[in-house]
């Protein structure tokens, strides 16, 4: 019974995290493409879309905290290790990438989106490896 509650709560926390993540991504797309394709550079609407995106981002962070707090100690350890690896790769990779830009080794500007993708993929990979390690 105890664990049924624990499992149910865990599932609820995961669903909440998925919903807020989707809302954040969707609002990001709206704030990015809305000014050009929907409301023709209307500044108040653009500011509103950015504010909504930031608010959804905060809600996503809170949902993530809640999700992690609801995990058991081994799952939290896997998450902590994955986050540590993702942060390390993000800082080192991000700074190297910036150096490539500032020293003009790469032709274009360094884009933050590449860094986000790198951190995301590293976190995903590290979580999968962590799950396999404790299997």
């Amino acid at each position: 019974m105890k664990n049924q509650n624990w499992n149910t709560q865990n599932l609820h926390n995961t669903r909440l995290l998925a919903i807020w993540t989707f809302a954040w991504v969707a609002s990001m797309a709206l704030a990015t493409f809305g000014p050009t394709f929907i409301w023709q550079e209307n500044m108040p609407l653009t500011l509103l879309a950015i504010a909504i995106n930031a608010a959804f981002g905060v809600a996503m962070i809170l949902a993530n905290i809640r999700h992690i707090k609801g995990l058991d100690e081994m799952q939290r350890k896997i998450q902590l290790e994955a986050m540590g690896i993702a942060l390390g790769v993000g800082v080192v990779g991000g700074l190297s990438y910036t150096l490539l830009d500032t020293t003009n080794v790469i032709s274009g500007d360094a884009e933050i989106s590449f860094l986000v993708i790198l951190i995301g993929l590293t976190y995903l990979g590290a979580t999968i490896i962590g799950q396999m390690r404790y299997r």
Partner: protein
Amino acid sequence: MKNRLKVLRAERDLTQADLADALAVSRQTINAIEKGKFDPSLPLAFKISRLFNLPIEAIFQDDDAV
């Protein structure tokens, strides 16, 4: 750290899921503890000890203990 969790569980005819239920952790965590891949925290070890009505040292043994 070695442990007798699997033996104690089998003696009481409990599945990993049953034990996970009683301890409010995932079945994967019970499996990892049994295989010695994950050492539980002191609060979880006490919980296990209370569940089996045994002292902690009767369940968990330090690898370095002489």
